């Protein structure tokens, strides 16, 4: 009979199916960051003057900041002068018709299961495909425009809707918010822009697929979503990168704005390359995501399934400004091999009768380290605020770790704040039970883990819940204790 230790070694072998490299001519800025680089990026994108100024301010502010050290993660210092801040496939002037897109790029997305031909796509899902620093193609734009929904890359939005961008960019995550947000504000290259007009329920799921391809290049994605009064939008992002021995930086900023009676549902299935079984390579995913419930009765819901990246540093948050607004955070974070994750949320209760829910499921396997870090803050004037937080950790094997750092700052006595936390292991008894019923060890683990994540998966849009389950299976291929 195999000993449990052997099982772990045998089973912790995952295959990263998206780890290929597309051989394509790229125009890449030489490594290094100075004012000239910031100007060059802005110029390449033919941005309006205000944008350049905004970037330069952010850059100068960034120079005064130091990297945050408080997260429960460990890595060698990053040399920000060794990274290239812009890389784009050659001969590329923003998205164009599909016939003009380099076939190699189409092939890449096809291989990733994201065909960009509209007729091949999942009905009801529009995609913005971002490759390194630029958007390659946004599908269904015309169809969405019929109902007034703007869905395009942020570069195009700066050309076509500069006023909207100027009004909202940085209004939730100010350029100087933190080290990585400031860096992103200075050098961001592409990402998605969404505007849903008053009273419109966006007729399709919107999604952005981020792909890192170039070596030694950072990806600085910027996404801005505005849901005007009484509107609804569901948005999903996915991401993958080639397998490389070097670490690569992905420092994104996502801002969501929900006006009165509006709802935004933002889902992430994060599958950046996690590094190999010795902890070599993988993406550093240092991301600032925040939404503002600006109007009364608005709602922002974050759902994330984080299975990739060598290191994840990410706290999708909600500022509950409007009265009766609702913030939700549903998260599954998995760390296997040597992956590290420090992730959670901030719920800031500002308006009256605001409510927030936090459901966090951390799964650690191999030598993975998984930390939940969350803040529930209730301001003076936020009467009758309610929060429910539940943080569950599942450990597989005895070399991994789970950590919970819940913070609460309550300044209003009418608040009701609840926190529950559990830590469990997949027990030998559970595995034996399932196997005695005829399930293979892999199926048993996958079933138990899926059960553990159920409350989060049910929040994902249908098509993606299936994806997420599969991803979890692949990511866990192997982790049993």
């Amino acid at each position, binding site marked *: 009979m195999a000993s*449990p230790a052997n099982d772990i070694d045998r089973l912790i072998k995952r295959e990263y199916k998206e780890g290929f490299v597309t051989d394509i001519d790229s125009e890449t800025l030489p490594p290094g960051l100075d004012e000239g680089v910031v100007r060059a990026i802005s110029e390449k994108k033919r941005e309006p003057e205000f944008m350049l100024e905004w970037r330069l301010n952010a850059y100068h502010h960034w120079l005064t900041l130091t990297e945050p050290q408080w997260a429960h993660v460990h890595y060698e210092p990053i040399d920000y002068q060794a990274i290239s801040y812009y890389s784009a496939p050659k001969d590329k002037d923003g998205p164009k018709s599909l016939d003009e897109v380099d076939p190699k790029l189409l092939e890449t997305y096809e291989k990733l299961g994201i065909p960009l031909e509209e007729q091949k796509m999942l009905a009801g899902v529009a995609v913005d495909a971002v490759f390194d620093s630029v958007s390659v193609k946004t599908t269904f734009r015309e169809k969405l425009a019929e109902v007034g929904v703007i869905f395009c890359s942020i570069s195009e939005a700066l050309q076509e809707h500069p006023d909207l961008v100027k009004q909202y960019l940085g209004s939730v995550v100010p350029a100087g918010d933190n080290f990585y947000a400031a860096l992103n504000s200075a050098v961001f290259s592409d990402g998605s822009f969404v505007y849903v007009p008053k009273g419109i329920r966006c007729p399709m799921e919107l999604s952005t697929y981020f792909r890192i391809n170039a070596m030694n290049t950072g990806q600085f994605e910027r996404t801005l979503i505005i849901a005007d009064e009484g509107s609804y939008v569901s948005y999903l992002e996915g991401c993958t990168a080639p397998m490389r021995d070097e670490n690569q930086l992905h420092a994104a900023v996502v801002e969501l704005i929900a006006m009165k009676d509006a709802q935004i549902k933002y889902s992430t299935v994060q599958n950046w390359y996690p590094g190999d079984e010795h902890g070599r390579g993988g993406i550093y995913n240092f991301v600032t995501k925040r939404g503002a419930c600006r109007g009364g009765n608005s709602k922002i819901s974050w759902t994330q399934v984080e299975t990739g990246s060598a290191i994840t540093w990410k706290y999708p948050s909600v500022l509950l400004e409007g009265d009766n607004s609702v913030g939700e955070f549903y998260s599954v974070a998995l760390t296997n091999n040597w992956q590290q994750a420090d992730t959670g949320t901030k719920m800031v209760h500002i308006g009256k009768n605001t409510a927030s829910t936090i459901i966090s499921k951390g799964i650690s396997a191999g030598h993975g380290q998984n930390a939940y870090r969350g803040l529930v803050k209730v301001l003076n004037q936020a009467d009758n605020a309610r929060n429910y937080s539940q943080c569950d950790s599942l450990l597989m094997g005895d070399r991994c770790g789970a950590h919970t750092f819940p913070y609460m700052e309550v300044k209003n006595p009418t608040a009701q704040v609840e926190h529950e936390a559990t830590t469990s292991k997949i027990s030998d008894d559970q595995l034996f*039970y399932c196997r*005695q*019923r005829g399930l293979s060890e892999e199926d048993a683990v996958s079933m138990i883990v899926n*059960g553990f*994540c159920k409350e989060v998966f049910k929040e994902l849009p249908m098509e993606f819940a299936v994806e997420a389950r599969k991803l979890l299976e692949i990511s866990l291929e192997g982790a049993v204790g």
Partner: protein
Amino acid sequence: MLSIKNLHASVEGTPILKGIDLDVAAGEVHAIMGPNGSGKSTLANVIAGRDGYDVTAGKVVFRGKNLLELPVEERACEGIFLAFQYPVEIPGVSNLYLLKTALNSIRKHRGLNDLSAVEFLKLIKEKIKLVEMKEEFLHRSVNEGFSGGEKKRNEILQLAVLEPSLAILDETDSGLDIDALKVVANGVNSLRDEQRAMIVVTHYQRLLDYIIPDKVHVMANGRIVKSGDKSLALELEKHGYAWIAQDPGAAAAPPAGS
């Protein structure tokens, strides 16, 4: 169907089974009785293939196959079912989902197609009547928040759905009140047939009032010290296990005068 020869097994270096010989033919129900610590549950777990039990000598052949070489799930697919003494909880996994996955795994092993959702539901509605459970039961997480009786009935439901050729019931009667015991026993009895064998492991004679065994074996100190028909169980009930302990090996009849 099942042939056990000179089986020795130990847990963390301590010998628990010290030479078990047992033959079970198709259609037979064998009861294994014995005091706590006699090795009854160990025997059940060794047959099922649980980790942590080292077989140090002996052979177990099941339908012509060397059982000890097979991993747990293959033994299950070959037709061995263990009704657990303490069924585990699996939060977030519905009873229905586990049953369907298990049944389809076993069908696949036998070269059969997966049952469709409709066929499966039809089957399950049929089987659930056997154990007098409500359908809502199927949608609850496996054993989570179940009472002791519900857990045991759930084991019998799984037995009914998976239709193994050898069912081992490990102390299925423990913790059951008389009504639940009857439901469980009825369920088990309805599953008795020519093709199926059962091994009923129990501490008390009580269960055997309802599930009448063809043979009764008494274990003590890692060995089967006495075998007989159902009357042996009744004698045990009368005299207690001390009777066996005092007179291991030979006791073919109760001691004189009692």
